[in-house]
């Protein structure tokens, strides 16, 4: 079985082609929208997607050495994400499905991050820590779905980090040589000072909006060195994530942790996770940077799992769902 998958939920228009046997990944082509300043502008991103889409699809097929007729299904991320961006991928997928008479497979973007992580790291039944620009979720598979044990009550970790470095003038670019500007700035703190900023964990959930406001106010007051604020902010944010993950482990009894999503690439965060995991005697598995960010391969792979379980959608019913939460997506293939 060969599936073509389309990702267009935020900044990346990606097309992946996968097969149900090794080497699994036949093509992985991406076009990433990089704003000149500020964050992602959904309309600008969607216009960019429209310009790039034909080339990306053609290149993916070419890389795989396939024609559309060789493909058994079209998978598309219908959400969660930004409306204008999602609509580009959905429109193209519907058109391909109808024109080439291929089944259309709806994929939840968050589920796809998890499934590609499982494929690549070999994780079987992990506690999932999903950290990206748009998501901060601690989840585990229970009875047919990835159930959420903890999440952010306001802004996601990646969004928090990006907003902070942007507001203090360190970004864009947000990531340089695989290192986030927040990590880079924090490393410059010589004294490793912990300033008085709020640490908010409520049960299983985290909250970053108060920390963001307080940290920006502190920087603007000029009463602390920027690198010390960076260090404190990073330590607080990462510790909060690990604390709720540890609670998730204690609660679910899972024996491995799988880190997925764009922010999982941070080596500092990873080493902190490893310290926690050693304490609880569990394994940490991290999606390698190449597949940690948004891509079409994860959509194609999840689409393949879904199609094998008969999950398809009629093109005329394939609406985008901007707020399609992780725990609202059925995962009939999920039993470990």
């Amino acid at each position, binding site marked *: 079985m060969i599936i073509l998958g389309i990702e267009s939920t935020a900044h990346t228009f990606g097309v992946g082609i996968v097969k149900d046997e090794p080497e699994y990944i036949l093509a992985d082509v991406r076009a990433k929208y990089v704003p000149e300043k500020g964050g992602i502008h959904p309309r600008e991103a969607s216009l960019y997607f429209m310009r790039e889409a034909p080339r990306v699809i053609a290149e993916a097929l070419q890389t795989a050495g396939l024609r559309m007729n060789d493909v058994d299904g079209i998978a598309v991320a219908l959400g969660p994400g930004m409306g204008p961006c999602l609509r580009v991928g959905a429109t193209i997928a519907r058109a391909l499905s109808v024109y080439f008479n291929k089944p259309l497979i709806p994929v939840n973007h968050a589920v796809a991050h998890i499934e590609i992580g499982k494929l690549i790291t070999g994780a079987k039944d992990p506690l999932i820590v999903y950290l990206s620009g748009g998501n901060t979720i601690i989840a585990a598979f229970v009875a047919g779905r990835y159930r959420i044990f903890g999440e952010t009550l306001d802004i996601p970790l990646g969004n928090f980090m990006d907003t902070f470095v942007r507001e203090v003038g360190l970004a864009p670019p947000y990531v340089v040589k695989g290192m986030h500007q927040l990590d880079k700035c924090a490393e410059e703190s010589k004294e490793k000072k912990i300033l008085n900023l709020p640490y908010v964990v409520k049960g299983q959930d985290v909250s970053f909006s108060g920390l963001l406001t307080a940290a920006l106010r502190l920087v603007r007051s000029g009463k602390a060195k920027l690198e010390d604020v960076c260090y404190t902010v990073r330590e607080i944010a*990462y510790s909060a994530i690990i604390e709720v993950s540890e*609670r998730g482990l204690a609660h679910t009894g899972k024996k491995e942790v799988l880190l997925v999503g764009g922010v999982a690439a941070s080596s500092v965060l990873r080493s902190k996770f490893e310290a*926690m995991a050693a304490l609880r005697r569990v394994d940490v598995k991290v999606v390698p940077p190449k597949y940690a960010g948004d891509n079409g391969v994860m959509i194609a792979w999840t689409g393949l799992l879904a199609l094998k379980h008969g999950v398809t959608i009629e093109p005329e019913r394939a609406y985008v769902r901007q707020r399609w939460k992780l725990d609202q997506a059925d995962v009939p293939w999920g039993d470990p």
Partner: protein
Amino acid sequence: MTKPMYRGETPKIIALGAEAALIKHTFLGMPAVYKVRLPKPYRDPKLDLRLRSERTATEAKIIHDLRLAGLPVPALYYVSLSEGLIVMEYVEGDLLRDLINRRISGYVDLVRELGKVIALMHGLGVVHGDMTTSNVVVREGTPYVIDFGLAKYSSELEDVGVDVHLFIRAVESTHYDVMEEVTIAFFEGYASIAGEERVKEIKEKVKEIRLRGRYVEERRQKRNK
């Protein structure tokens, strides 16, 4: 830990949670629980110390305040902020959860009593944060509330509502078949202290909390099964 006056029985680990270790032992000859918030290697040491001592202080202060107000909570024996240690009374008894499950006679009265205790606690500006029937120990007919690890000072209706909501949700999942009489008894007890008006207000809040986000979805799933 330092080496204080351990005497009597050998220490026994009761629970090893994400937040703290609970050890049953004695303190000056009395049965005691040692709750230790252990250092976390993944946290900056200064941040680690700050969090452990802040949380230890809050928990100890809350237990102490409630005890001084005459509520059935463990007595506070000893606190060390730098060690993240609280030593408190070991309340010998049965978990309310088990008593309800065994349907012992008078379990409804116990829940009514608990409703009174929780209403008094909320009246003192404290919310528990993890209100389940597993966190209530019954000794000589009195329901003792334990584990204030997630408790905080708050009089906001939102926080009070969450406390009550957590309790109801726990009852729903643990004591499904007697859910109705347990819930009614809880609110009877609560109203006898806080008044019917306040209970109405809290019930409204709980309804609002339950309609938020994923709880609604969870209920829909249950129906479809």
